[in-house]
C-alpha cells in the first residue's frame, strides 16, 4: 500500500480516536448517583458512553494497523503492546502504547464485567483517567500535525471539556457526601445499667 495513504490514515484515525476518547471521558465523568435531573435519560447517556468507547477502539485499531503497515518508519508489531519498543520515536510511540494498554484493560474488564467484583471493575475502569492524558501527550508529542492551528484548537477543546467535566464530577461527589443525614456519630457511651433486678429476679410462681 502506498505509504503516503497509510500515513494520512494513521494521522486521521489518530485524531479521531483522541476526539472519541475525549467524548467517552466526558460522558463518563458527567454521571453521578442519586441524580436529581429526572428529565435526563441516564441509561441512554451510559449507553452512549459505551458505544462511543467501542467506536474509539475501532479507530484505534485502524490507527495501529496503518501505522505498523506503513514502511516509511519502522515501529514493529511488538511496540503495539510493549511500551518503548519502537525504534521510531521511542518515547512518544511508547506513550501511545501505554495508553492503548490501559484502554484495552478497561475495555476487556467491561466485557467481563458480570464476572468481576464491582470494586475490581471500578478500579480497572479508573485506569481510563491515565489513558486519556497519555493519549494526549502521544498526539502532541509526536508532532506530526501538532503545529496546525485546527489541531491545536481541537486539542485545547479536548483538554477544556475533560477538565470541566472533571471539576463537575468533583463537585457533584462532594454535594452527595454532604447530603447524607448526620453521618456516623462517634461510638456511644454506655448508660448506667439497671442493678435493681435482684428485687424482682424470682420466678412468677415461686
Amino acid at each position: 500500500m502506498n505509504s503516503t495513504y497509510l500515513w494520512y490514515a494513521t494521522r486521521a484515525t489518530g485524531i479521531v480516536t483522541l476526539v472519541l476518547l475525549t467524548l467517552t471521558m466526558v460522558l463518563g465523568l458527567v454521571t453521578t448517583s442519586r441524580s436529581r435531573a429526572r428529565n435526563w435519560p441516564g441509561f441512554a447517556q451510559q449507553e452512549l458512553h459505551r458505544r462511543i468507547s467501542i467506536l474509539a477502539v475501532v479507530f484505534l485499531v485502524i490507527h495501529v494497523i496503518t501505522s505498523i503497515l506503513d514502511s516509511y518508519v519502522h515501529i514493529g508489531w511488538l511496540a503495539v503492546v510493549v511500551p518503548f519498543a519502537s525504534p521510531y520515536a521511542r518515547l512518544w510511540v511508547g506513550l501511545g502504547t501505554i495508553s492503548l494498554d490501559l484502554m484495552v484493560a478497561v475495555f476487556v474488564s467491561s466485557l467481563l464485567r458480570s464476572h468481576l467484583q464491582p470494586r475490581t471493575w471500578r478500579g480497572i475502569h479508573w485506569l481510563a483517567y491515565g489513558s486519556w492524558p497519555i493519549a494526549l501527550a502521544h498526539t502532541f508529542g509526536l508532532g506530526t500535525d501538532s503545529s496546525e492551528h485546527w489541531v491545536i484548537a481541537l486539542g485545547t477543546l479536548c483538554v477544556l471539556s475533560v477538565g470541566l467535566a472533571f471539576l463537575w464530577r468533583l463537585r457533584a461527589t462532594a454535594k452527595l457526601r454532604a447530603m447524607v443525614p448526620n453521618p456516623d456519630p462517634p461510638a456511644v457511651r454506655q448508660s448506667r445499667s439497671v442493678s435493681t433486678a435482684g428485687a424482682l429476679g424470682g420466678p412468677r410462681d415461686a
Partner: protein
Amino acid sequence: MPSADLAPPVGKVHRLLGHPGNLTEHLDAHGPLNVAVSRNSTWQQGLVTSLEASGLTGRGGGSFPTSIKLELALAAGSRGTIVVNAMEGEPASEKDKLLLCRVPHLVLDGAQYLAALCRADRIVVCIPIGHDAVATAVRHAVAERSDHRHAPLAEEIVRPPDRFIAGEESALVNWIDTGRSLPVFRPDKGTPLRIGRRPALVHNTETLAHLALIARDGPGPFRNRGMTGEPGTSLITVSGDVAHPGVVEVDRGTPLWDIAKLSHPVEPVQALLVGGYGGAWVGPEHFATPYATSPLRRIGAAAGVGVIVVLGASSCGLTESARIARYLADQSARQCGPCMYGLPAVADDLAQLARGQGDGDSMARLHRRLGQMMGRGACRHPDGAVGLVRSALAVFATDIAGHSQGRTCPFWRSPTSLRFPRAVEV
C-alpha cells in the same frame, strides 16, 4: 445422661433466674455437662428431639423456632462457629447482661451443647465494648470452667462495637469475619451465615440458657411453663414510669399488665411499649393481651425482645416516640437508601409534630414515608422503626391530632422516661 426419653426429675421447675452463679454450685444443681463423651448420633438426635418437643423459640427478638434454626445449621455442615449474641443493643433491655452476670455457666453450657450438636469447632461470646462488668463476669466464669470436662471447646470473648445494629445476626457475623459491623443483604434466609467459609450459628444469650436446661432436664419442665402454643418462660425488662424497674422472669402468655405490675407502675398508665424500641405501643384496651407471639400479632405488636416500657399519664407519647425515632435513625447502618434517608426524615416529621410545628401536610407526608419504608433495607431495622411509629400514630391519635393543630399537650417538654445511651434531642 439426660435425654428426651427419660422422665424429668420430679418437681423440677424450669427457670433461669435464682440459680447459683459459681461453677461448683452450678454443677451441684444441674449435674455435669456430659457432652465430651457424647459425640454420637443417638445423643445428638435425642437433643434435637428435645428441643423440638420443647417448643423453644429465639429470645433475641425473632421468636424463631430454635429447632428449625438448628436443622438449617446442621445442614450447613460441621466445623462451624457458635456465636453467643450478648450484644443487647436494645437500650431498654437488661436481661442478657443480667444472665451473664448471674448465671454465666448456664449460657456457656448452652453454647457447648450446641457446639457438640453441630460439630462446631469454635465458640465466640460477643460482648460489646463498654459492657465491661459483663465481660469481667464472663471472663471469670470462663476461667472457672477452663477444663475440657466443663468446656470441651474454648470459649472466646470478643468485643464488637456498641451500636444498636451491631447485634443484628448478619452484622455480628460480618464483624467477626471482616471487622465491619454492617448487616448483609440475605435474600434467602435459609442460606447460612459464614465466617470465612465456615458456617456460623448465632443465638441469643437467653435462648442458650433455656437450651442448657432443656438439654439436661428434657423438654418437660420447659413445656410445663408458659402456655400451650408458646411454652416456657421469658425474661422481660420492665422500665419507664415505674417505681422498681428491673428484669423479671415470667411464663410466656402472662398478660402484659400483670408483667408491668411487677415493677409497680406509676398509675394511671397511658400505654405500654412492648418488644423494644423497634416494637409497638399498646393502649389500655389491650393491656390484658398475653405476652406471646400470636396474641400480640393480632393487636399489631410482637413479642420482640423481652422489653416492656411503661408510659405514665404525665408523659407525652408522641414526644417519646419522636425520641425513639431519632435514636433509631442515628443507629442506622447507613447502607441502604430508604433507611439512611427515610428514618431521619420520619424522625424530623415526628419532632415537628411533637413541637406543635406541623404544617397541613405533615401527617400525609409521614404516612406516605412510612408506607414506603417497609422491607426495603438489608435488615429489619427500618421495619421496626416503621412499626413503632405506626403504633404511636394509632395509640396516641388524640394527642397527635392536637399537636398537629398546634395544641401541644402539657407534657411534651418533660424529661424522657425512656433510656438512651446518649441524650436524644427532639
